[in-house]
């Protein structure tokens, strides 16, 4: 199975979706929108944008048609993520359209699907994955306790830096029903409304103005029916859900990197120093060519990861880790060079370079840094 090559060429429908998404991002969610949200205080999400994305049906891309979605698959979702990544749009897509939809579609029972998925597809409900408890992605390290009580479970623990935690309606909480931090067995997933008793949310003002939240759970009781997937077997659902999130995030990152590179290339072709276009200096040309090389190589990894998920390939986890690690390294390089190539103007808040630099480090840290995924790749390959 690993040997038949995955599909790199977009179908006509996927192509159309891509064009729609890029046109929408360009016209409705330009970087200038992020700037004005930031200037207005930010860290509140962008409900208006979310509403428009809902109209376009972007929240239903991973939702089965039976539940009001288009079941368009990860390759399609990736095109949308790349588009919103290119303009650094603030959207609930990753947490809701990818993670929320996937967790329920892959692990929810019929009742949960019927109740939740249509609302996710329509954009009526937004979700957020409350997983990590430390400063680094460590999904197995879940320590939050879920203790059995009469009618269900009582959740106690603290989740750090929950993306969209400050805006989402519904949390997907990873908690331990058995075993020790580090064990994959004994993790279970629960749906917890943000307004449930015992839930407290501290909104975080983040460097990229997207915001996030620390979420603490002080004896929050949830019903048996709010558990997604099987008791103690949440990992079997969490890992494929995380791999979808990582692939989608990688697509967003290649979008950001490409846009920052295009902006830089444009500057190289217009800015003059010493009577010459700065793009005519060979040292700059070689650095630009190396960035382009990294972008092309990484783009292939992202496409492969998205396709592998849709094709249900056995080497999906490996390909996803390659995509996330390479996307991190490439975006890291490009976001730094973007500032350096722009010189002084790139250091000013008035220029967009800084927005790409800031978002990049958030994207790099989320769901595993390059080092995390190198380690994961090596483990998968047993060395």
């Amino acid at each position, binding site marked *: 199975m690993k040997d038949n*090559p995955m*599909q*790199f*060429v977009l179908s006509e429908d996927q192509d159309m979706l891509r064009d729609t998404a890029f046109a929408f991002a360009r016209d409705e969610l330009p970087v200038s929108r992020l700037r004005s949200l930031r200037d207005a205080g930010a860290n509140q999400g962008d409900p208006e944008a979310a509403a428009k994305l809902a109209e376009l049906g972007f929240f239903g891309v991973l939702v089965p048609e039976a539940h009001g979605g288009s079941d368009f698959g990860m390759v399609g979702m990736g095109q949308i993520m790349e588009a919103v990544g290119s303009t650094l749009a603030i959207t609930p897509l990753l947490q809701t359209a990818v993670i929320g939809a996937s967790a329920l579609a892959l692990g929810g029972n019929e009742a949960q699907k019927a109740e939740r998925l249509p609302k996710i597809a329509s954009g009526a409900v937004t979700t957020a994955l409350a997983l990590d408890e430390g400063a680094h992605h460590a999904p197995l390290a879940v320590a939050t306790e879920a203790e059995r009580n009469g009618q269900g479970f009582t959740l106690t623990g603290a989740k750090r830096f929950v993306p969209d935690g400050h805006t989402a309606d519904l949390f997907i909480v990873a908690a331990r029903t058995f075993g020790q931090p580090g064990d994959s067995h004994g993790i279970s997933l629960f749906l917890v409304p943000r307004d449930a008793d015992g839930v407290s949310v501290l909104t975080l003002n983040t460097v990229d103005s997207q915001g996030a939240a620390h979420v603490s759970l002080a004896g929050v009781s949830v019903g048996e029916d709010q558990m997604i997937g099987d008791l103690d077997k949440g990992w079997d659902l969490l890992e494929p859900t995380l791999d979808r999130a990582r692939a989608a995030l990688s697509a967003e990152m290649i979008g950001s990197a490409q846009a920052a590179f295009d902006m830089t*290339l444009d500057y*190289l*072709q217009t800015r003059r120093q010493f009577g*010459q*276009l700065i*793009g*005519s*200096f*060979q040292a*700059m*040309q*070689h650095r*630009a*060519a*190396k960035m*382009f*090389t990294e972008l*092309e*190589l*990484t*783009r*292939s*990894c992202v*496409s*492969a990861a998205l396709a592998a998920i849709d094709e249900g390939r056995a080497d999906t986890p490996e*390909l996803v880790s*390659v995509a996330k*690690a*390479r996307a991190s*390294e490439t975006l890291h390089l490009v976001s730094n060079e973007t500032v350096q190539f722009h010189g002084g103007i790139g250091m000013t808040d008035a220029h967009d370079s800084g927005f790409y630099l800031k978002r990049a480090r958030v994207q790099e840290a989320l769901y595993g840094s390059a*080092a995390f995924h*190198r*380690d994961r*790749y*090596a*483990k998968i*390959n*047993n*060395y």
Partner: protein
Amino acid sequence: MAFDETEALDGFRKEVRAWLEQNCPASMRTPMPDEEVVWGGSRETFRNPDSRAWLEAMASKGWTAPTWPAEYGGGGLSRAEARILEQELKRLHARPALFSFGLWMFGPALLEFGNEAQKKRFLPDIVHGRTRWCQGYSEPGAGSDLADLQTKCEDKGDHYLINGQKVWTSYADQADWIFCLVRTDTSTKHEGISFILFDMASEGVEARPIKLISGSSPFCETFFTDVKVPKDQLVGEVNGGWQIAKRLLQFERSSISAGGFGGTGGSGILGPEDYAKMHVGTDALGHVADGDLRGRITDHKMYAKAFSLTVQRSTQQAKAGQEVGHTASILKYAAAKMNQDRHELLVEALGTEALGWDGDGFDPAARKATRGWLRSKGNSIEGGTSEINLNVVAKRVLGLRDHQ
């Protein structure tokens, strides 16, 4: 595709399959050791006798050059038929009957630029592997600036007289004939170059093999002293050789970035991670104990994965009729970096085991890695240096201009 056409192709497939069953010797259906490769020409020894029969059979059908016109000894097949032949050969795991710069590089160019007499004279001998060709391009003074070549070609009325030196001439010591770039006009650069053919047995031709830092190599220094060449062996117009040269370079570049010659294939089957486990040791989980080295090995393996995925992607996109020139432009550079990084990591993981040259005391596979490491340094130089590749990407792909 029209019905009768499909039917015709099915017929062709049956015919090919039957013929191959008949004519492809059993030993030619097994993996080919390096020493059994058939390059043809007067020095060919056919280590494996079956390889001679196989070449003769294939050549008799013109299938060593399936799409060349039959009148020049080719197979005269359509693209569709050629694809079928290819598939059927794969089906049998049949060995290539002939390796040949004539087939890969010179022949296609001659079909395009040569005159009728030249095609009739030279192409059949290529198809049958009777003549082995080498390429006289690079010169010591020129390097990356190929068009700076100085090998002089004077018009002596009834013949040309050639004086000069070529370098990096692959297999010049094995070849029967050479296709060669020479200077017929010193007053201009690109417009003063001609494309000429001559017999390597001619008076005044000498080829000396070049020893590389990695040991012996197929490359030669080739010297021309008052070599007389009949005038009908100049291809195309006098001073019109540069466009032929450029056309040929495309073939060479693509075959190098595809890991063709130059041994970019890498050394041995074990990777740096295997040698690291073997020589650096493993932790309780069986992972490479040195996390620093392990991380760098993984970074490389991910780069290599990205490279192969990119080759797959551009191939698929090309098949789908999409523009892939931009993506393809980075492959030569990336292939060189990938292969060099791999060998550096092999050498690092092998530790002192990688410090052998010859003689006893070292694992032969490790010695192979050491030679491969040294040879890999040429990957970013041969067939266009990495610096030239980056210039090309910057200018042709990214549209950056030179100083004005």
